[in-house]
C-alpha cells in the first residue's frame, strides 16, 4: 500500500497550521484511494507534538528529535528528510509551503531523484502521478501540472485546504538521525527576530495590510488599532518593508508571504500585481484607498474610496461595537 507522508512543520515551538491543512487533505486522498496516511515531525522536541498530529488522521507518526533541529538549518533538515524517506519509502511527501520548506525542496528533490512540484493551490494523487494546480505569471493564470517520480514531493500554499479533524490512534516511531558539521557545512550565526509575538501571517484569520498610503505614526497607529480590534496579523506591501516602515518579514506578495486569510483589509495599497499575487486567495477582501481607480478595487469585495485617516476611525469604532 502506497504511503502519503506529510511533513508537519514546527516553528517557534508550535505546529504550523498550514501543515495540518496539508495533512487533512492527504488523509482524504488516502481514504479515497486506499493509501496509508502518515506524518513526520522533525524538531528538537518532536515527540511532544504527536498528540496534536494524531487528531488529523495519521496512522503512523515518525519523529526525529535532537538539538540539531532546534532552529531551521537546511543541512540538518535535508539529512533528516533523506533518512526518513529511506525508512518509510513513501510514494508522496507533502509539505506546507513555508520558507523552511522552500529552503530544502529543490535540494531534496535532487538528492532523492524525486519528482517535485512547488507551491500548489490544489493537488490529487492517483497512485502513480500527482495532478496539481499552481498559480503562475504572478498568479494571473493557473497551470495544470502532472508530476511523476518516486517519491513525488509536493508543497502546498497555506489556506488551500480546510483543517479536518479525524482522530486516530497512531503508532509513533522514533527515528535516529545524527547531524554533524559535514551535514551542516553552513554556520547559522543568529536569528534576528523582529516580529516578536505578532501573529503569524500564514496562520492568521484576519490580516490588516498597510501600503504606501500609510505614511506616518498616526497612520501606523490606526493600522495597529484595527489589527488589535480584529485580532489580525499586520502585513505590508513591498514599498513599506523596503523603506523600513515595517519589518521585512511582514511583506505580502509574490516576493514575500502568500496569504489567504478569511478577511484581508488592504489600507492605502494600490494593488500592484506582485502584491495581489500574495493575497488574491483571501476569502473576503476589503480595500481602503483614496484613489478610486486603484487596481486593488478590482479584487476587493468591499471597496471604500476615501482618505484612510478619515475612514479608519469610524471603521474601527463600528467593528468595536459589533464585536461587543
Amino acid at each position, binding site marked *: 500500500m502506497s504511503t502519503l507522508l506529510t511533513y508537519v512543520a514546527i516553528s517557534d515551538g508550535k505546529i504550523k497550521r498550514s501543515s495540518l491543512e496539508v495533512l487533512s487533505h492527504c488523509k482524504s486522498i488516502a481514504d479515497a484511494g486506499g493509501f496509508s496516511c502518515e506524518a513526520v515531525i522533525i524538531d528538537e522536541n518532536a515527540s511532544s507534538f504527536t498528540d496534536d498530529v494524531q487528531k488529523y488522521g495519521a496512522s503512523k507518526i515518525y519523529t526525529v528529535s535532537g538539538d540539531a533541529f532546534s532552529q531551521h538549518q537546511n543541512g540538518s533538515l535535508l539529512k533528516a528528510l533523506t533518512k526518513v524517506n529511506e525508512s518509510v519509502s513513501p510514494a508522496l511527501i507533502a509539505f506546507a509551503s513555508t520558507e523552511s520548506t522552500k529552503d530544502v525542496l529543490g*535540494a531534496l528533490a535532487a538528492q532523492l531523484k524525486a519528482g517535485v512540484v512547488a507551491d500548489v493551490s490544489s493537488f490529487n494523487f492517483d497512485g502513480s502521478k500527482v495532478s496539481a494546480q499552481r498559480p503562475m505569471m504572478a498568479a494571473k493564470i493557473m*497551470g495544470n501540472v502532472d508530476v511523476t517520480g518516486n517519491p513525488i514531493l509536493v508543497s502546498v500554499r497555506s489556506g488551500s485546504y480546510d483543517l479536518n479533524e479525524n482522530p486516530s490512534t497512531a503508532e509513533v516511531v522514533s527515528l535516529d538521525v545524527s547531524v554533524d558539521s559535514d551535514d551542516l557545512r553552513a554556520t547559522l*550565526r543568529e536569528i534576528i527576530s523582529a516580529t516578536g509575538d505578532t501573529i503569524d501571517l500564514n496562520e492568521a484569520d484576519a490580516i490588516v495590510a498597510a501600503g504606501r498610503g500609510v505614511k506616518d505614526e498616526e497612520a501606523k497607529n490606526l493600522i495597529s488599532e484595527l489589527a488589535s480590534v480584529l485580532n489580525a496579523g499586520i502585513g505590508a506591501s513591498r514599498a513599506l518593508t523596503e523603506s523600513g516602515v515595517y519589518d521585512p518579514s511582514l511583506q505580502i506578495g509574490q516576493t514575500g508571504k502568500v496569504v489567504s486569510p478569511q478577511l484581508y483589509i488592504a489600507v492605502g495599497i494600490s494593488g500592484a500585481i506582485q502584491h495581489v499575487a500574495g493575497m488574491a486567495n483571501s476569502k473576503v477582501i*476589503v480595500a481602503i484607498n483614496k484613489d478610486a481607480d486603484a487596481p486593488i478595487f478590482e479584487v476587493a469585495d468591499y471597496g471604500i474610496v476615501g482618505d484612510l485617516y478619515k475612514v479608519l476611525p469610524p471603521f474601527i469604532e463600528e467593528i468595536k461595537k459589533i464585536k461587543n
Partner: protein
Amino acid sequence: MKFIVSIKMVPDVYAPFQIKDGELLMDGDRMVLNAYDASAVEEALVLTEKYGGDVEVVCIGAAKASETIRKALAMGAAKGYHIQTNGDEAYDSSSYAQILADFLKDKEYDVLSFGKQSQDTDSGLTGGMVAQLLNLPYATNAVGLEIEDGNLIVKRQGDSGQEMIALPTPCLVTCSNDMNEPRIPNLKGIMASKRKPVESVAVSDMNLDGAALEAVSKVTSYSPVPARAAGQKFEGEPEEIATKVAQLLDTEANVL
C-alpha cells in the same frame, strides 16, 4: 571573489496574454531578464566592486536569450556563457538544474548566485537542486550578502526572522529582489557590453543523458484564475461608508 550568476530570460508578467483551449498565448517578444536574477547580478557587482573579483553570467535559452545576457553584461558583468536550446524543449526545474550542474562542474568560482525563483513560474527549485548536484553549501531567499574572511555571509528571510548564515566558499546562494534595486545599464555599459565575450555551447553538444533531462513535471494546460465575484465600491461621506462596510462584514460576509 568570483561570482557566476545564473540568469534566465522570462516572459514579462505585465504583457497581455490569452488562454485558448488550455494553451497560453503571449507575445513572444515581450521577454525580460528575470527580476530576481537581476538582483543577484546587482549584488554580485556591488560586492566585487567593493572587494574585488569577477562576475560572469550563465543563461540557458534559445538564440533570443543572448539579449538577456547582453543586459547583464551592460550592467557590468565581465563575461557570459550561453547554453543554447532550440526553444521548444519542455524543460522543468530539474532539467535546467541538470544542465547547469553539468556545465558548472569544471568551472572555477567562489559563489554561484541565482534568483530565488523565476517570475513566470515561481517554483524556486533550481538553485537548491544545483547546490545538491554540485554538493555545495547553500542558502536561499537571501535579502542581504556580505563577504567576511573568505566566507559569504547571507542574511536570509526565514519563517520566524532573518537568519544570519556564514557559508564557506565555494557555495551557492539564491537571491530575493529585496536586497537592492538593480542598476539600469547606461550608454557606456551598453556600448562596452558589445565587446564583452560570450561563449556559446549547445545543450545537444554537452553529452548529457537525454532521459535525465526529461521533465518530471509537465504543464498539461493552463486555465484562467477563477474570477472573484464583482465587489461593491463605496464612495461618499467617509464615516457613513466606513460604518456601512463594517456592518456588511458582519451581516453579509460574516467574517467578524
